[in-house]
């Protein structure tokens, strides 16, 4: 069982390796949202898809990617594009880009579950898709369209909005001069970032 301290300690180790100069690619450390995520992942099944962003270490660990596998990916410069076939995990480092991919996976699952496709070929179950996005991504048009399609077709896709108020260091509130309404079917939580947008504050910008 992964607890809060396990997550914090993992990122501390990444920070130490990064500060040593061994990692020659950006890292986006997680922090400050351990309790919220541990709670959310109680409902994520091991066969579910999890789609994430550049800040994905906690999602990856909580979905079951082994600690050493994840650390190896990060040290090899894959922090922004963590992936896994089993458990099913994929991330994108471009704002909004992961949303339609998650939508497509959910559409495929729904077609299997509804027997839209040849049911002798596909036998599916109750798998689900989880898509974790930040507050700036939540404000984009692509989220609006994808959420509408998800809702109207009752797709097995759960959006989770992780609101730290910032996109890199750009404040979401100020740049939009307000926020959109939050749909009731979206999981939403706020937290304060512990680390900078990327890196540890001791290395370089990219």
């Amino acid at each position, binding site marked *: 069982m992964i607890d809060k301290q396990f997550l914090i300690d993992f990122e501390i180790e990444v920070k130490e390796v990064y500060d040593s100069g061994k990692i020659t690619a950006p890292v986006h450390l997680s922090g400050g949202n351990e309790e919220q995520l541990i709670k959310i992942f109680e409902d994520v099944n091991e066969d579910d*898809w999890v789609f994430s962003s550049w800040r994905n270490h906690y999602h990856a660990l909580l979905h079951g990617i082994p600690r050493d596998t994840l650390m190896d990916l990060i040290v090899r410069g894959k922090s922004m594009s963590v992936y896994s076939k089993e458990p099913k995990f994929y991330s994108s480092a471009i704002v909004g*880009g992961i949303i*339609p991919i998650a939508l*497509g996976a*959910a559409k495929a699952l729904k077609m299997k579950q509804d027997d839209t*496709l040849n049911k002798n*070929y596909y036998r599916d179950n109750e798998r689900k898709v989880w898509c974790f996005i930040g507050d700036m991504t939540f404000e984009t048009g692509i989220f609006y369209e994808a959420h509408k*399609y998800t809702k109207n077709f009752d797709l097995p896709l759960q959006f989770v909005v992780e609101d730290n108020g910032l996109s890199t260091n750009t404040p979401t509130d100020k740049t939009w001069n307000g926020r959109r309404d939050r749909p009731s079917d979206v999981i939403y939580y706020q937290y304060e970032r512990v680390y900078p947008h990327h890196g540890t504050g001791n290395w370089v910008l990219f």
Partner: protein
Amino acid sequence: MKYKDEIIRSMEWLADKDDTIFFGQSVLYSGNAIYNTLKTLPEEKRIELPVFEEIQMGMSTGMALEGLVPISCFPRFDFFMRCMDALVNHLDKIQEMTEETFKPKVIMRTSIGSTTPLNGGVQHTQDYTVPIIKMLHEVNVVLLNEPKQIFPAFESAYDRDGSSLIIEWGDYYNEK
């Protein structure tokens, strides 16, 4: 066989596969020439989507990650431009990003808009084949100039790992 007939034959061959699904705009409802190459397919194999090309391209990637082979239809090359992020930054980079763990198979269809008997003008007739080839590294791009190319191109797109963009000439639907 003629150009359009070869495309129809290819679509019918793909539709016989259990894992294929056709979707996009004008796949279930008329309105663009591409519809006439799909109308013989079973309705349950065709999903009409809203007009949201970027989402359509991302959806294609997600469906392929889940094991389907989407035949993602964009009626005109001009409209296809609206899906560039999902294509260039995502689908086309996924094998390198995942160290070849994921090789989603998406078959994209688009068409250089016809100029006769009606010329749709600069927003409906552009050929972006050359710049697209330069931009893409993992997606295989095929321009269908002759009828004899057509069936092998779709057959190869289905059989190979990874994704393909197959570009048609709208004018050849009538000319060749």
